[in-house]
């Protein structure tokens, strides 16, 4: 009464045939990675540039001109014009006409030359912190650059004046601060978990809904035969998605792949299987395809928000990190970024692989226990 390869193969082949006939689902599986890459890679940009900027000018001179020019060349700011008075500043920011307003105070030029360190006020629309963050941090650097470039001749003493606002931005692995380098590798985790969990959950619930589960249960098939036979065809879907993902990641976003391929493939396989097992578990809980779908979406939320995909993991509160650690995407996200961006090898990703395997074991055991061999 042990595992029957014949029955396992029967289910496996049946799944492949059904997958091939269900063209719509198959097309979705290919379209989802393309769409997500385009949306997250292009449309959602957490390092936005060319932000509309207005200037409130109370003084002018070489420093002011040079500073404003530096702002424009930084590409963060697009200087669209001037405003008059602080009430105007409030109005344009509230209305969203500008993300930044730079106020040049009176006697700005004179105070610089006198060494009085005048304050340059920048009002930023911080309602979306990620929009203003990098641009704001660039400002102090721009100010210092402006001072340095003009600190020649009689003004050379200014070069040695310490500037309290200067910030040294030191971005390792991604010196150009191209967001897509950080977002794109993580997207593979998001795409796989989104589609794999949903497709397996639905594929199994569909059997109950169509009544074919009764036939399947009336045969002597064992739980592992059904589970493996149903899961493995979708591993191949995962491979296809991964290929589509890399074609776009390399050609469109020119994302690097710094590390070796073998540890990546090991991680990928474990991650795909964890997600399929999770989908199988969901299917044992859901009563119909609609519920399976809802559960998959319910799972998507934390796996996008708490996995370190959208927000830095270390910056999350403790409870959120705890939830994040239980989510497989968190660990695969780390594997992807380590290998693709930092060139990590197998030993570096061992802790992440271990975490994935523990989750896999827990989910599989739960799924097998919950899988009912009766209609009760």
């Amino acid at each position: 009464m042990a595992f029957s390869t014949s029955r396992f193969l029967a289910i496996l082949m049946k799944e492949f045939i059904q997958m091939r006939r269900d063209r719509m689902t198959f097309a979705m599986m290919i379209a989802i990675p393309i769409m997500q890459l385009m949306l997250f890679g292009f449309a959602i940009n957490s390092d936005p540039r060319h932000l509309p900027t207005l200037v409130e000018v109370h003084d002018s001179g070489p420093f002011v001109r040079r500073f404003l020019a530096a702002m424009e060349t930084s590409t963060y700011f697009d200087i669209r014009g001037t405003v008059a008075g602080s009430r105007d500043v409030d109005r344009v920011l509230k209305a969203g006409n500008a993300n930044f307003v730079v106020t040049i105070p009176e006697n700005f030029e004179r105070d610089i030359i006198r060494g009085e360190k005048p304050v340059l006020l920048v009002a930023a629309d911080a309602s979306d912190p990620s929009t203003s963050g990098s641009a704001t941090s660039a400002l102090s650097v721009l100010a210092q650059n402006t001072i340095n470039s003009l600190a020649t001749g009689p003004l050379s003493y200014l070069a040695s004046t310490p500037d309290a606002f200067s910030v040294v931005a030191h971005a390792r692995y991604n010196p150009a601060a191209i967001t897509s380098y950080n977002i794109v590798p993580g997207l593979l985790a998001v795409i796989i978990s989104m589609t794999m969990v949903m497709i397996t959950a639905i594929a199994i619930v569909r059997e109950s809904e169509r009544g074919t589960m009764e036939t399947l249960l009336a045969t002597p098939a064992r739980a592992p035969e059904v589970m493996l036979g149903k899961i493995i065809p979708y591993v191949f879907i995962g491979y296809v998605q991964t290929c589509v993902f890399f074609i776009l990641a390399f050609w469109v976003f020119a994302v690097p792949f710094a590390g070796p391929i073998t540890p990546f493939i090991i991680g990928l396989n474990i991650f795909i299987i964890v997600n399929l097992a999770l989908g199988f578990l969901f299917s044992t809980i859901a009563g119909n395809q609609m519920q399976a779908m809802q559960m998959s979406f319910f799972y998507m939320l934390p796996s996008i928000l708490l996995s370190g995909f959208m927000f830095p993991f270390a910056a999350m509160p403790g409870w959120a990190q705890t939830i994040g650690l239980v989510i497989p995407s968190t660990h695969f996200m780390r594997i992807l970024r380590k290998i693709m961006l930092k060139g990590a090898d197998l030993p570096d990703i061992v802790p992440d692989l271990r975490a994935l395997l523990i989750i896999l074991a827990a989910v599989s055991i739960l799924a097998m226990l919950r899988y009912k061999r009766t209609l009760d």
Partner: protein
Amino acid sequence: MTQETATPVIEVEGLVKKFGDKTVVDQFDINVPKGAIYGFLGPNGSGKTTTIRMLCGLLTPDAGSGRCLGYDILRQSDNIKEHVGYMTQKFSLYEDLTIRENLDFMARMYRVPDRKQKVDKALEELGLANRSHQQAGELSGGWKQRLALAACLLHGPDLLLLDEPTAGVDPKARRDFWDEIRRLSDAGVTVLVSTHYMDEAIQCDNIAYIAYGKKLIDGPARKIPEMVGLNTWRVEGPDLANLAADLEGSDGIEQVARFGSALHISGMDAKKLDNAVNPFRKDKRYTWTSKPAGLEEVFIHLMSGSTDNFAEKKAA
């Protein structure tokens, strides 16, 4: 029970199944001898499907015990499944698989030796050999039923459990289906079949009548009317509708049923029934004959007499 020449194929006692606080099957016993065609009759929702599912291990009984094909129904359902062919009430093969793929799948699930020949032979016998690449979902009701039967026969089961196999199938297809069942029974396959149709019930060797989870009667098909003891008058003539209205409700008449161009008037007490009928017999337009009750009258009688135990509970 052991005096029987062969051990019964199904031998269960006291089966109970509850869904929530509803008792769907209540203290069900049955004894099915080898090679018999055993009919399960009863109204919708009487627990026929639930009973069949418990016998093949698809549902776990809440109480009761027994053996099916010599295996314990509670602990050895895997062994039972290997030797049972189960045809579900609703078509439950894969509609998006072709006819051949479905048969092939089922043959693999039961690890049938010489799979390819068996599948080819089944297609041949079905008369579907040239349509074997058609998807099962495109088949009509009668063909689906034939395919489902062929699929559950591939592994040569010793016991066939057929759950309303002929629902929604035309008379010709039903007749062919029953010829096939009879052939299988002659070959030693035991068949347990649930049905609503009286003409099918008559084809069975034994009949168990179930209503609202309780078995009301169980015996050889021929003896059922006798066991119930129902008396019937058959009357033919004009304007039967008015006659039926006049008869209905009279003391001693429990049931007035229309059978084509005749009325069947039945009652348990022969004397009372005769007294109720006699005044009407003077009308010379009608011809009256006293006859033993048929299966159909018996079942209508049983059905109207049995109480809905779900409703009863509410009242209590």
